[in-house]
């Protein structure tokens, strides 16, 4: 029992702290990449308390629910967007024995539950009774449809290589030469994951210059904060998954396993931020085309490669 409580405490710490750290990193990294300072005031030293100040502000703000909105769905949508990312963390191994539970079909579970997060933004888009939000919600749905397939194919390539769906089991099988072997799948998985999180350059559903803030336009205060937290928790989950599936998770020389996992996760999170700063937003049809003409065929190539190498070696 104590063991379970300890594991849950670690999961909650990862869920509540890492998104904040990544959010603060994003403020600063974006600022430096764009040659500006970013938040400097809150907390004194380089604005480290900016997100805490934001949280305090969000907690005190009035909760405005438009009269025209579909009230009940509008109210639960942020929860639907956030909670799946917490539940997914339970199967992700941080260290050799550092996971919540070892489900036999962990990989399948992860992909299934991650898909639910997107439902939150579709629900929000529909319930807001706002034309732009509906458009944003539809775009979220389209993006989920298009990018789920390369995501699933790339992930199943790793399952083929390891011969198991359990995430700790995959890491037990992992060898260093899987890095080049699964490299294509890794890139496909990471890009498709980014698209599912609706992060720039795949942020067509929330494109603020044309559809304001998409599904989140009508949200204020705490509910908006939950959506924001869901976005950063999504980055955490995606970075963890890519680390576990394609970068060998806790494998690494010298340092302890969980430190290696965190190093890889932070490198990937940095990459997420970097891509946001570097690339312009894709247009909706370019977005779809990238998935179907680019990522799906690449994922199929990876599947063929995995199968041939695995059977012939």
């Amino acid at each position, binding site marked *: 029992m104590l063991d*379970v409580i300890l594991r849950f405490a670690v999961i909650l710490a990862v869920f509540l702290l890492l998104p904040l750290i990544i959010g603060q990193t994003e403020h600063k990294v974006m600022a430096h990449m764009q040659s500006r300072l970013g938040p400097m005031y809150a907390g004194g030293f380089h604005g480290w308390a900016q997100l805490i100040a934001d949280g305090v502000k969000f907690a005190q703000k009035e909760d405005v629910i438009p009269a025209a909105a579909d009230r009940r769905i509008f109210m639960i949508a942020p929860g639907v967007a956030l909670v799946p990312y917490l539940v997914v963390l339970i199967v992700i191994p941080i260290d050799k024995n550092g996971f*919540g539970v070892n489900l036999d079909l962990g990989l399948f579970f992860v992909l299934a539950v991650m898909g639910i997060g997107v439902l939150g933004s579709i629900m929000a888009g529909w319930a807001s009774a706002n034309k732009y939000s509906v458009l944003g919600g539809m775009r979220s749905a389209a993006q989920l449809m298009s990018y789920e397939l390369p995501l699933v194919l790339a992930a199943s390539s790793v399952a083929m290589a390891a011969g198991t769906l359990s995430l700790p089991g995959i890491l037990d099988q992992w060898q260093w030469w899987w890095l080049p072997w699964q490299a294509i799948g890794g890139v496909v998985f990471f890009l498709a994951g980014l698209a599912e999180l609706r992060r720039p350059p795949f942020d067509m559903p929330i494109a603020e210059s044309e559809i304001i803030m998409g599904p989140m336009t009508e949200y204020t205060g705490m509910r908006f904060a939950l959506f924001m937290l869901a976005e950063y928790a999504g980055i955490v989950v995606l970075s963890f998954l890519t680390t576990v599936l394609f970068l060998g998770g806790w494998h690494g020389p010298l340092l302890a396993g969980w430190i290696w996992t965190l190093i890889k996760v932070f490198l990937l999170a940095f990459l997420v931020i970097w891509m946001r700063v570097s690339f312009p937003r894709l247009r909706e049809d370019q977005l779809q085309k990238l998935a*179907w003409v680019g990522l799906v065929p690449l994922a199929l190539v990876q599947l063929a490669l995995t199968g041939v190498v695995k059977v012939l070696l």
Partner: protein
Amino acid sequence: MDSYYGNYALVAALLLIGVAIVAGALMANRLLRPTRPTAEKLTTYECGVDPVGDGWAQSQIRYYVFTYLYVVFAVDAVFLFPWATVFAAPGYGMTTLVEMFVFLGFIALGILYAWRKRVLTWT
């Protein structure tokens, strides 16, 4: 707690904790926030201008075709997972590898068809 159902009981427990976190955050918000709704405040924000017409306006959704594509491929992809765990087991090997290429061929054909039908290019 290592049993099959024990594991999923833990997943359910974490789900409940997640719901509790969201509910707790919203409760804290309820205790701390002012509530002074006015008719004007409760109109839909949209883009800052007073909304015209109903929120659920009709619009043409061009990407419904992708939904069809997705359903076709996702059903295939689900079968990949149980197959992936056993395909290299002793006694399979070459046969399953050939099967895999048949599978990949089907998916590639589907995409090729969609591409020829010009689903993927719009103007």
